[in-house]
């Protein structure tokens, strides 16, 4: 049995040989960080005079206090610099503590001594923790004293410091145990460093590789919910906990337990490897001969595949456009790295250059695995791209078009008022029940795209191959799994439009995609925690709206939404936009994501269309309705420019024909007439009120009519540009300058304008 005094004597003896690590740790944690904290305090205090000049003594004191508290929360709390130094000290401590295992001399000495292996491990392990923990706690106390001395040690700072300290201890253990494991698996310090890099980065590399190959080769892969961030990494766990603390001011128990379990698990594994480690491993490359082939293959395969994708990028291989052109280079790069990588690792194993050609079977296995993985992605052996679940397998689903209805505000937010992306919003709040239609849409689109994909890229022509817009589909399967896929839908295809009308016309879609329709927005409005500002406008004119009117309009809009469908939105241009600004005042001392902010605001834009008849009636009744894009009374005159592109083409053709060139020469493109000197543009100016009014009724700003909108609906006529010149006394001049540029929607050009600006030769 080990007596307490004998244990302490051993602990002390072990520490004598680790003095420089103690000194390093003390210098960083007890000197550098407190000095940094003092410098930060001093920097903030130096700004006191200018704050006092600008805002007065009282306000300046409050500002400085808030800034000090914020700064100390960061310094004493989840500081990235502290995380990095903690990791550094954990690695140094582990390597230094167990480095005796690298030397046969030391192994002979220590293992020959009458000290239990387990006891020796425990002494070194415990000292390795104390080396960080004792200076860390003392340093934290010094920093806390500095903060207290400057009146910046309040509940927030203390809570932040304690939470961060607890997380950093677990983080330290996670990194420390990983480093010990690296020592146990290797026989010298250089290989240990490589091993450590592999242990920390392997999952990240594999995840990146999977994402990279998926997005490179697969048509319907989406990166949503896919992340390179490793699950089994103390760094990513620390980051998640830190981020969670910034948002919630509490530590997520799940993540905390995850980090603790990781530290414990890796520690147990490291200890197991220590007990199994043979003494002759000292100085060799790898401790356990049995792991060598597996490790070689596990390193060579991802390295080769990464080389392949780098080569593909270097030669601009684009498998979705041309699956074969450039593939040879990619395969060559993969095979080259298989051979070189296997050879290099074997050289490291054997410490002999001749080792490069040994163990060819392992090289072959690596090559075969690379080939299999490459083929799995390149030829979609798993059927990823053609997969659509059977409707009876699906509980519910979400369908999220990319960049659809862009004018709907800059944020989506959840019921706690946190900003989320449109996809995350749909993920949480869209539960489509008509999964059969969605699955049919997916099947129809996948089959349709497969037929045109190659031609679509080679010869881009929407008339011939269709207009393919991207969306994401999230299938929530009955077995509990959730599968997210990209989908390309041909919005010009009638059958697709019918599917889209049913999917996007459903209440669940609107609830989960359009914040204006959502109960989340209603909940925020009803919470009373937000100040609301509302306006209605058409990008030029904006009318402030009372909160009551806005809420009433929103309620009416929800009733009207029943009439909205994909086709109706596609075939219409918004009449105007209801904009809601929700603001929340934050207490001055409260920080948001580590930064002091007094308020935070969300914007919600709701497009109002002519088919929203009840909305139209309400707007008219309340006087918000704007019949035209601009009021003729504000307009001095309008100039319309017609490019007359068809006439220009005809002129070029005519000139080519009149040139004295043979048919063969013309076919060979010897006459390169780009018509640069031909100008067919025609201009017409209108200043009479009735003309201005007529033009105003069919002119739109580009923000309202996006030619590349997801639904490929109403487009601006590219032939015309409408320059609207405001009256000098108009309010518009002050807001937009002398003029603004508009366009005509296709098919809505007034006849008189078309006539006035038509091309006439000799003009």
């Amino acid at each position: 049995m080990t007596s307490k005094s004998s244990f302490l004597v051993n602990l002390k003896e072990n520490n004598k040989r680790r003095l420089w690590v103690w000194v390093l740790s003390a210098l960083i944690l007890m000197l550098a960080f407190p000095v940094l904290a003092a410098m930060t305090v001093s920097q903030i205090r130096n700004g006191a005079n200018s704050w006092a000049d600008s805002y007065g003594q009282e306000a300046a004191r409050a500002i400085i206090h808030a800034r000090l508290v914020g700064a100390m929360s960061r310094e004493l709390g989840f500081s990235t610099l502290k995380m990095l130094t903690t990791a550094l000290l954990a690695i140094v401590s582990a390597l230094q503590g167990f480095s005796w295992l690298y030397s046969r001399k030391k192994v002979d000495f220590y293992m020959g001594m009458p000290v239990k292996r387990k006891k020796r491990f425990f002494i070194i392990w415990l000292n390795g923790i104390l080396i960080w923990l004792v200076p860390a706690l003392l340093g934290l106390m010094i920093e806390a004293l500095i903060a207290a001395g400057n009146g910046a040690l309040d509940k927030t700072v203390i809570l932040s410091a304690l939470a961060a300290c607890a997380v950093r201890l677990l983080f330290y253990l996670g990194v420390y145990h990983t480093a010990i494991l690296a020592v146990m698996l290797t026989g010298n310090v250089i290989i240990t460093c490589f091993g450590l890099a592999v242990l920390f980065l392997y999952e990240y590399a594999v995840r990146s590789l999977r994402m990279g190959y998926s997005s490179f080769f697969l048509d319907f892969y989406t990166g949503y919910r896919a992340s390179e961030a490793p699950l089994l990494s103390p760094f990513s766990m620390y980051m998640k906990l830190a981020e969670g603390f910034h948002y919630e001011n509490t530590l997520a128990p799940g993540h905390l337990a995850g980090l603790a379990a990781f530290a414990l698990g890796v520690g147990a594994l490291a200890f197991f490897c220590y007990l199994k480690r043979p003494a002759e491993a000292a100085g060799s490359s790898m401790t356990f001969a049995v792991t060598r082939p597996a490790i070689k293959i596990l390193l060579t395969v991802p390295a080769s595949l990464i080389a392949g994708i780098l080569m593909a990028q270097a030669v601009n291989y684009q498998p979705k456009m041309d699956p074969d052109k450039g593939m040879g280079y990619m395969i060559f790069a993969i095979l080259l790295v298989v051979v070189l990588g296997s050879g290099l690792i074997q050289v490291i194993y054997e410490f002999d250059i001749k080792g490069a050609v040994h163990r060819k079977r392992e090289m072959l296995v690596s090559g075969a695995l690379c080939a299999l993985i490459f083929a799995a992605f390149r030829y979609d052996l798993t059927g990823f791209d053609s997969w659509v679940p059977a409707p009876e397998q699906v509980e519910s689903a979400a369908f999220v078009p990319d960049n659809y209805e862009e004018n709907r505000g800059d944020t989506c937010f959840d019921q706690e008022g946190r900003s989320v992306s449109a996809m995350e919003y749909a993920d949480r709040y869209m539960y489509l029940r008509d999964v059969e239609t969605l699955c049919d849409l997916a099947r129809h689109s996948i089959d349709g795209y497969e037929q045109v994909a190659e031609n679509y890229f080679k010869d881009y022509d929407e008339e011939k191959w269709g207009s393919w817009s991207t969306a994401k589909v999230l299938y929530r399967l009955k077995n509990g799994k959730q599968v997210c896929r990209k989908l390309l839908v041909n919005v010009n295809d009638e059958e697709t439009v019918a599917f889209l009308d049913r999917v996007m016309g459903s209440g669940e879609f609107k609830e989960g995609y359009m914040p204006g329709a959502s109960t989340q927005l209603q909940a925020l409005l009803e919470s009373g925690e937000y100040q609301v500002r509302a306006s209605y406008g058409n990008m030029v004119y904006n009318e402030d709206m009372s909160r009551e009117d806005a809420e009433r309009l929103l309620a009416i809009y929800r009733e009207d939404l029943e009439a909205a469908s994909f086709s109706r939105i596609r075939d219409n241009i918004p009449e105007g936009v209801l904009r809601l600004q929700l603001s929340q005042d934050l207490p001055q001392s409260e920080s948001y994501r580590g930064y002091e902010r007094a308020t935070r605001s969300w914007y919600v834009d709701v497009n109002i269309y002519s088919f929203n008849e009840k909305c139209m009636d309400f707007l008219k009744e309340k006087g918000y309705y704007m019949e035209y894009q601009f009021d003729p009374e504000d307009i001095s005159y309008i100039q319309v420019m017609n490019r007359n592109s068809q006439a220009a083409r005809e002129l070029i053709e005519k000139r080519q024909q009149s040139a004295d060139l043979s048919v063969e020469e013309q076919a060979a493109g010897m006459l390169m007439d780009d018509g640069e000197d031909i100008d067919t543009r025609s201009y017409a100016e209108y200043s009479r009120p009735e003309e201005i009014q007529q033009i105003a009724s069919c002119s739109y700003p580009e923000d309202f009519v996006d030619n590349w909108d997801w639904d490929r609906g109403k487009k601006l006529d590219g032939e015309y540009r409408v320059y609207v010149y405001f009256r000098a006394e108009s309010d518009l001049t002050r807001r937009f300058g002398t003029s603004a540029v508009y366009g005509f929607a296709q098919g809505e050009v007034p006849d008189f304008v078309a006539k006035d600006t038509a091309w006439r030769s000799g003009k």
Partner: protein
Amino acid sequence: MIEMKNVTRSYDGVKAVDDVSVTIRENTVFGLIGTNGAGKSTVLRMIAGVLRPESGEITVDNMPVFDNMKAKRNLYFIADEPYFFANCNAVDMQKYLTGVYPEFAVTDFYNYLMNFGLDKKRKVNTYSKGMKKQLALICGVCSGARYLLCDETFDGLDPVMRQGIKSIFASEIERRGMTPVIASHNLRELEDICDHVGLLHKGGVLLSRDLEDMKCNIQKVQCVFKTAEDESKAISALDIMKNEKRGSLNVLTVRGSKAEILAIFATVNTIFFEALPLSLEEIFISETEVVGYDVKKLILG
């Protein structure tokens, strides 16, 4: 007593020690001889509990040795290149060893240091190679361990130091029954220290004998017989291991005690007769030649 029974150990598939069985009795100085790569260090490292045998059993005073503290307190292992802590001096080593060997003789340690002229305050990394070996031996002797395992420790020590160490060994053997086990590739290094020798070759034990037994049981005789009859009579009566004839001079290596051999020679007429002492080297050559090995090649190169 240290017992190795059918012990086997290999590195990367190559057998370093193959089915070795050796018994090391107490109160003797055991010499473990073998060429480089014969497995001497592996045997010592296994006895010291540094390596775990793949098969077979090693016991120290009937206790298995690997990770057994009770058994290991009876052992002190001095590796071929002894390790001392970085920047330490003899005092630091003493303090550490006092912590792990409860019976460490502190007073003896400083006395020995003084006797050997080693400065206790001087950094060990400034010591010469020989001084480091002396310090390692002093540490081992003072540890209180009954078995002192020395791997090539005596190689390179000057004769005065060897004599000093030898006298320490003698007194410790007498005082507390210390049993040094000394591995060396050089027979001549061990001749004046060991009283039992084991010869290792290619991982196996060729022989293991008491040196005194070997010396008493083998005699070297130079003689010139008076007649051919005398020669044939004597030769047929003797257990001859080796017979070299240089003209009329017979150089015989004969198994048997000196008295027995003298008695046989008393029955024949000789012109010249001389019984010579055998060196350890000669004994080994004779013994191993009998079993078909050329020890000159094995050990002496």
